[in-house]
């Protein structure tokens, strides 16, 4: 009796690719807010959208892809919620750039998110412990 055939299909077929992609996308979406706000917080001067995207790419060049275009709705919502402020900065190399700075409220929120992230990460690591 061979019951391993379906398992092998799941680990290598198109369905497996789809599931893996979904899992990776879910993980990425769940942390996008956190890393975007952290990137803005770490910058020494106001940063524009392309710069944020580039920083994220440099931080993890082989990670799960989040397209640049999906960052802007996040930045827009963050601004509406008072986590960041934006200013339009003229540029000699192209169109004016909207640059973002974290607000004190944004820093407070980021602190809460980081604490939660570390807590969740610890719990997940504990659950994953022992799996080869």
């Amino acid at each position, binding site marked *: 009796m061979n019951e391993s055939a379906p398992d092998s299909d799941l680990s290598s077929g198109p369905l497996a690719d789809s599931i893996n992609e979904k899992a990776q996308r*879910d*993980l*990425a*979406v*769940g*942390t*996008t*807010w*956190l*890393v975007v706000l952290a990137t803005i917080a770490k910058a020494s001067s106001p940063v*524009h*959208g*392309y710069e944020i*995207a*580039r920083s*994220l*790419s*440099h*931080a*993890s*060049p*082989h*990670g*799960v*892809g*989040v*397209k*640049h*275009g*999906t*960052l*802007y*709705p*996040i930045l*827009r*919502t*963050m601004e*509406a*919620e008072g*986590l960041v402020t934006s200013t339009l900065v003229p*540029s000699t*190399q*192209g*169109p*004016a*750039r*909207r640059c973002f700075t974290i607000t004190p409220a944004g820093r407070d*929120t980021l602190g*809460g*998110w980081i*604490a*939660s*992230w570390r*807590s*969740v990460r610890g719990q997940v690591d504990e659950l994953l412990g022992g799996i080869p």
Partner: protein
Amino acid sequence: MTVSASPDPLPPRAAETAGGTPTQVISYYLSQLAVAAAGMDAAMVNDMLADAEQHLWNAVSEGVPAHRAVAEFGEAADVVCAYVAAERGRGKGRQPTPIVVPMQSVSGGVAPTRAETPLTGFRAVPVLGIWADRYAWGSMALFVFGFFLAIAYFVVVTAWGSLALGTMAMIIGFPLLVGLLGFCRVVSLAHGRLIEVTTGVRMPRRTAPVAGTGMASFWGRIGLWLKDGRSWLSVAFLIGNFPVAVLLFTVFFSLAALAKSLLFLPIAELFMPDQWFEDGNGFHLGPWQGGRVPPLLGLLSMVLGLAIFTGALWLAKGCGWLYAQVAKAIQVTRPVPVGPVQVV
């Protein structure tokens, strides 16, 4: 998690446009975005296109090939989905939260949903419910107080424009004119936010960059600004807004004054001394006994005042919606995008 910058194979659409100039590639991608967002709120689409255009030109100015920048920006459908999702969460009074982080630990508890108030219940009452509609009041306030803003816009634009045109023979007139165009775009955008707050109609939050300035020289940029239809529309809006604001101010100020008089005069009369109703020689003013309005007529006056003000609120809400749609249409107008690029 990361943003994809690794050298993945280009998606088909990006590859399709890889042979064009940056302007062609970006314009084609923007047209793809516009097609993917067809039928959605014009202000949201405007903001999305403005973000995309600004980002792509920033990437190109950093030396990234346009087709690569487009590929990194994402498939049009994915980008539209991200905006729609953000738009759905707008105005719900909830703290944006990473999905993996428990809400309670972020904001000290689950954000409360907006409570039902007596006003929200009253809003459901037919006809009279308009008294509890904040956008009806907001529209009326916009039409009354926006009159003064309209005067200010008109004075600044005509004075600045005259100065720019008057000095056109000298070189200084061109930068002055470009400055005026930029000023008008910013003021139109800011006025749009005021319209959104008062009428509730979603207005653009971004103004699209002037097409093509990313790669142009200083004088080239001035030429592009002068050729940019959106900027001239903004100027036309600020000038054309003046007579409209005068008309709206006249109508709504008059209606409000009339309704207020009819509504409150019978009440105010109760507290007025008798001598106010005499001409100083013992003759009563007005056709009624003692110069005062009879109680039944006073009651009718109050009902009429209430009806006029209720009608004025409905009219203000309708005019506010119409005014916002016109302002939005002006702000979201975009130049016709470059058609599909032929691969060379």
